[in-house]
């Protein structure tokens, strides 16, 4: 019988969903400095992310069917490899934590203010543990079926708000210099950089040669939809209103009204985003567990997954006691850590692998 692995469509859907799920609280941070010019930083971030993707793709091809945790040990040696993997695990767990905190915060602020945050957190983490138990294939299948719904949700928000849009709101544009754009790009670069999870996924892909183009396709589609929705938000609400909103896209979805009968459909939108957010939490949770499994040579994730979920829970409590600390972490803490791992770590790994190959050509391409 055919052994099922992750397919191209699943990888594509995955990157669409995780990028589109950044809508929980991030868009207004992206727009904060450059305002109407924010999309330029997103273009820069996409280029950097494509380069990063190429580097991981090369590593993935060189070490087929191995996760980044496995080949980092092969490249850096056992000890250094484990240290590198530990940093990566910490990174993945942090991303999962930030997603969890952002989603729970959104629910406690905007949807169900009377329900305590821990209820949401525990439920999301329990389901995440169940998803990990069911395996990466199951998470990817969920992604595959959910991506079209997420995309449809964004497109419906854009289309159904056309009547409010004023293109004048998109002016002024092109006001900032290259240096400012480069500086501001760091935040989107750091966030789109979470796509280094491809270092784990590529090992399970059924045709690794196609991975890069599928990934970039998914990334560009996801970022495109997110950016379009943000631009639609600016056009419909104006820059001033947007900047004061934490959840600008949510506000946009609240304005949808069909025939004066179907109104306030944002709960349905929220449901689609919740599933998208859950996919992010569980996939990064999974990546963290997979790393720990490699580090400790564990046989299964049965114990690791619940333990990591407890760690994620504790981290959300310690790191993000309130909305201000979360925003501050996203703006001032996370980008440096993320850039160090995504750019520094991955390029370092690639350089060492490259030098090792040059010194010992026989090792090259163990395909």
């Amino acid at each position, binding site marked *: *019988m*055919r052994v*099922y692995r992750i*397919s191209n*469509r*699943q990888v594509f859907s995955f990157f669409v969903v995780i990028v589109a799920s950044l809508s929980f609280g991030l868009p207004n941070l992206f727009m904060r400095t450059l305002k109407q010019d924010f999309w330029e930083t997103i273009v820069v971030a996409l280029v950097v992310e494509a380069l990063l993707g190429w580097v991981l793709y090369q590593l993935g091809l060189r070490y087929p069917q191995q996760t980044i945790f496995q080949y980092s040990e092969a490249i850096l040696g056992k000890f250094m490899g484990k240290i590198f993997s530990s940093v990566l695990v910490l990174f993945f767990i942090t991303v999962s934590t930030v997603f969890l905190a952002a989603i729970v915060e959104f*629910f406690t602020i905007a*949807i*169900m203010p009377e*329900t305590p945050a821990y*209820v*949401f957190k525990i*439920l*999301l983490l329990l*389901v995440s543990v*169940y*998803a990990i138990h*069911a*395996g990466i*294939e*199951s*998470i990817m*299948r*969920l992604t*595959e*079926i*959910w991506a079209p719904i997420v995309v449809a949700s964004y497109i419906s928000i854009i289309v159904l708000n056309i009547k409010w849009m004023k293109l004048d709101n998109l002016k002024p544009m092109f006001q900032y210099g290259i240096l400012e754009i480069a500086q501001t790009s760091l935040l989107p670069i750091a966030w789109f950089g979470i796509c280094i999870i491809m270092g784990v996924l590529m090992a399970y892909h059924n045709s690794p040669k196609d991975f890069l183009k599928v990934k970039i396709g998914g990334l560009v589609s996801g970022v495109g939809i997110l950016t379009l929705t943000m631009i639609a938000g600016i056009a419909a609400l104006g820059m001033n209103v947007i900047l004061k909103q934490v959840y600008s896209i949510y506000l946009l979805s609240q304005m949808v009204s069909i025939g004066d*009968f*179907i*109104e*306030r*459909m944002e*709960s*349905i939108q*929220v*449901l689609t985003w*919740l*599933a998208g957010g*859950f996919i992010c939490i569980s996939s990064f949770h999974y990546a963290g567990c997979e790393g720990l499994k490699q580090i400790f040579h564990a046989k299964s994730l049965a114990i690791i997954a619940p333990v990591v979920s407890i760690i994620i829970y504790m981290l959300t409590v310690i790191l993000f006691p309130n909305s201000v600390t979360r925003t501050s972490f996203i703006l001032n803490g996370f980008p440096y850590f993320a850039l160090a791992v995504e750019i520094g770590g991955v390029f370092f790994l690639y350089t060492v692998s490259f030098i090792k190959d040059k010194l010992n050509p026989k090792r090259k391409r163990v395909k």
Partner: protein
Amino acid sequence: METQNDNLDQDLETNRKKLMERLQENQDLTFRDFRVGQKESRGFLAYFESLVDHEWITVSILKPLMLDFPGIQSIYDKHNFGIEDIQKQVLPNSRIDAVWEWNAVIQALLSGQTALFLEGEDKALILKTPSGEYRAVTESESEAVVRGPREGFIESIGVNVALLRRKIKDENLKLESLNLGRKSQTKVNIVYIEGVANPKLVEEVRKRLNRIDIDAILESGYIEELIEDAPQSVYPTVGNTEKPDVLAAKLLEGRVGIMVNGTPFVLTVPFLLVEAFQNAEDYYARPYFASLIRILRYISYMITAILPSFYVALQSYHQEMIPTPLLISMSEGREGVPFPVFVEALIMGIIYEILREAGVRMPRPVGQAVSIVGALVIGEASVQAGLVSQTMVIVVALTAISGFVVPALADTAAILRLYFLLPAAAMGLFGWQMAFIVLLIHLASLRSFGVPYTTPIMPAHIGELQDVFIRSPLWSMVARPALLSKGRRQGKNGWQLWRGGKKGK
């Protein structure tokens, strides 16, 4: 009792004694003595009186032996004619097996056959004489159709095989037989079409069936539970059908059928989720209407599984989502209802399940009483008494009716209703959505005989979606399902056929 499998003896009386020993305390075990040949060799027939057709024994065994035999001069005069001569020249039965072992003799007797013993022979002849007391081939009640073949399988595996062979007249239609159940020794057939079914799948079915070690197989449900991939799941991963045309269609797609003697339900594997939404009639009706009905089935299943919980979540937590005029009339209906909406939904759900179960189990004559109690007391009186809101009655009624649209998943829908109700009542749409995600992950992780259960939806096979939510025209369905069989089901490209037809060629 310990089972010895030794061989038959040459001495007739020893054999009789042995047989009586093995089958003691069986009052319906009958011996019929006779003498044959010029030398009047002694012999006897052994059979279970309750299982055989007496007329058949008289006409096709005793008459040839005792009356017609003298006419066959070539062996009648022989001094030492043997049981082989009887088998080849005297008895006209279409099937006669010679056996040497006691276990084979006992097994044959227990399945309604007759054993013939002869003096001086260490083997016996097994003659097919089962009585034909079976239900006639009638219309299947569980899979009724308006257009399409009416016949359904019955309890006799032999008749069922005949019904199938009449549908598929192909030399590659293979039928493997085995007996399962230590005590019941139920005959089970594995059927598949060689060259269409994946040989690994057939081997897997064989392996799983051979693993079964249980006292009795009284219905195919026993086998289903013992061979399925996910016994812990509420979803069935083994399919069943009562209709020969459905079984034929499934075999032609590369599936394997498991026929069990004593039940009209034939198992098919692998069973995918989408099969539950397909109906034989979809393929006999025109594709547009069939597609519409197919979509309605999916909607109905969603309604029956999630409507009560969705209603509870909206009423309890997200009233803002309900359009204002609708909300006002719903709130008016709920005025004076003493229970929270969750309790109301739970009570009504349980009452409905009780009514349904009573409807299935009760003797037919009291049916009307249950209907009256259900319709008047539960429906009308409880609303008038202010115990239940009208909207809730509508929700429960819609849920109940929708449940019958997809009969294969009706029992899972009943469980899902309860499963969704609790998180929806506790946490509104958030809880409901988390429950939905768990369900999706569970479905995504299921497999049926190695094939992902939710194929071709997730993982998606775009080409095969033409027979999932809609039923495409037959000419466009050229290939067989890729995960089951690699071949094509149509020789010529259907598109060309269609275009040719359009041009009037």
